[in-house]
């Protein structure tokens, strides 16, 4: 579902990613770990086509992102659910309207919007906060709105860049378990993090980056101590 072939990315000559080869299969759940500055966010930005690689190719569902025209970028992003560390919610809109936005922009009729948003809010357990504005919600709740928004259009891939970076450990674990439950429905999930606790608790595939290089890739791993001892 996600494939990187000899992907390198440099910023002004300084490499952020070096010759990465990677494959994440359909329905897989994987962590992307590494210390701050390792290149996790850079890889995520390549995956949702916010950036293009300096060399190499990125594929999502067989589509080479290098070949996407600007007009096709929105089409790609509608097939991805993207989750951010800072949630990126529309502050002037309620939780419901945040989740509903993309559906309305696509012209889905209001009855369907209601049904799909309610079901997405159900998945993240926020039905009763539908009418709250983001600043009336806790960090964990805001992130759950972010997740509901990411899944409302039923995307085959979820990308989460440090989704728990602003949350306390207990809430972090809840969020990751929620994402794990979503992946059980067949969604490919890639979570970048430098939070040992959640990685160790889940025992899932762990892809480790270090200084822009693929450092290790294990099937049911823990956060490698060598990584932190850089």
């Amino acid at each position, binding site marked *: 579902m996600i494939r990187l072939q000899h992907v390198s990315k440099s910023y002004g000559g300084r490499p952020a990613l070096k010759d990465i080869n990677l494959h994440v299969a359909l329905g897989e759940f994987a962590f992307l770990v590494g210390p701050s500055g390792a290149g996790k966010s850079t890889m995520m930005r390549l995956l*949702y086509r*916010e950036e293009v690689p300096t060399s190499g190719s990125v594929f999502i569902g067989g589509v080479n992102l290098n070949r996407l025209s*600007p*007009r096709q*970028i*929105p*089409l*790609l*992003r*509608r*097939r*991805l659910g*993207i989750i951010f560390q800072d949630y*990126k*919610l*529309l502050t002037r809109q309620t939780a419901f309207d945040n989740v509903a*936005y*993309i559906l*309305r*922009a*696509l*012209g*889905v*009729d209001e009855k369907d919007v209601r049904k799909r948003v309610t079901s997405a809010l159900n998945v993240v357990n926020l039905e009763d906060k539908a009418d709250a504005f983001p600043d009336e919600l806790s960090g964990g709740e805001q992130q759950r709105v972010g997740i509901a*928004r990411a899944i409302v*259009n039923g995307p085959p891939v979820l990308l989460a860049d440090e989704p728990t970076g602003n949350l306390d450990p207990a809430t972090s674990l809840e969020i990751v378990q929620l994402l794990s439950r979503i992946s059980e429905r067949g969604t490919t999930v890639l979570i970048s993090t430098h939070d040992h606790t959640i990685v160790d608790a889940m025992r899932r595939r762990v892809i480790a980056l270090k200084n822009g290089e693929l450092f290790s890739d294990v099937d049911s791993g823990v956060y490698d101590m060598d990584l932190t001892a850089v």
Partner: protein
Amino acid sequence: MRQLRILARVVVETFLGIKRSGWSNWLVISILAIALTIFGSVLQLTMSLKNLVNMWGSQLVISAFLSDKYEPREVARDVSQYKEVRLVEVITKDVAWEDMKKTLNAASISNPLPNTLHVTVNRADQVEALAPKLKLLPAIEAVRYPMMVVKRINEFRHFIEIAGVVVTGALTAATLTVIGNTIHLVIQARQKEIEILSLMGVGHFYIKCPFVLQGAFYGAVAATLAMLVLLTMHMYVIQPYLSQELASIAPLFPKNWGYNILQTFTVMLVLGVAVGAGGGAWTSGRYIKI
């Protein structure tokens, strides 16, 4: 159905944007309205003058003086072959002489007057084209027509047209700048939101369209305001005073010479909406990087 719902959402987003622009809405609308008022006045004036020249011109007659060697009725028949000609009236030298004798009391001399044709054309701009052609006819010795009046009006009209284009152009440029700044402010205020929408996969059209519509809205409101100003001027200034004054100075002045105000409004509306939407499109294209 789906397209309609998208359009309805875009309109809602547009009005949210307008609401957020606050007082600068009125700045944009006033400047655009001033530009359109000037443009509309110039348009109305030049079109009216054009009408005037046409209506008046068709009353203008080319006088053609004939050589005595030709039979005036035959010449009249030849002249009436020209497609520009609407009417030819023959005034024989005898008739003219009889007329003149009544006032001059010069009975003893022989008739010095030529036979004359009064040639009426269809449109004013044909006078100058036809007169030299008539003069080329061997039977016609001289032609005369009140060219100067028509020429003066046309010169005046051209001056107004050029001045109008220059002033309208300058004001349009100013308007574009103000529209650009206003919409740029809205875009800046919504920068984070636009980034989020883009990451969610909302299309470029959906994101940019509200800014174009916001500009078009300014254009439509400004055109309506400008039209109200023009109508007021027309009803309370031009109609009661100017028309009557003119009518008393120049009796020939046609009464109903106003150019159709609905056409002026249409042109102003189209121009206003085009300038507004153009400004919005340009600004959103320039400042929305997605």
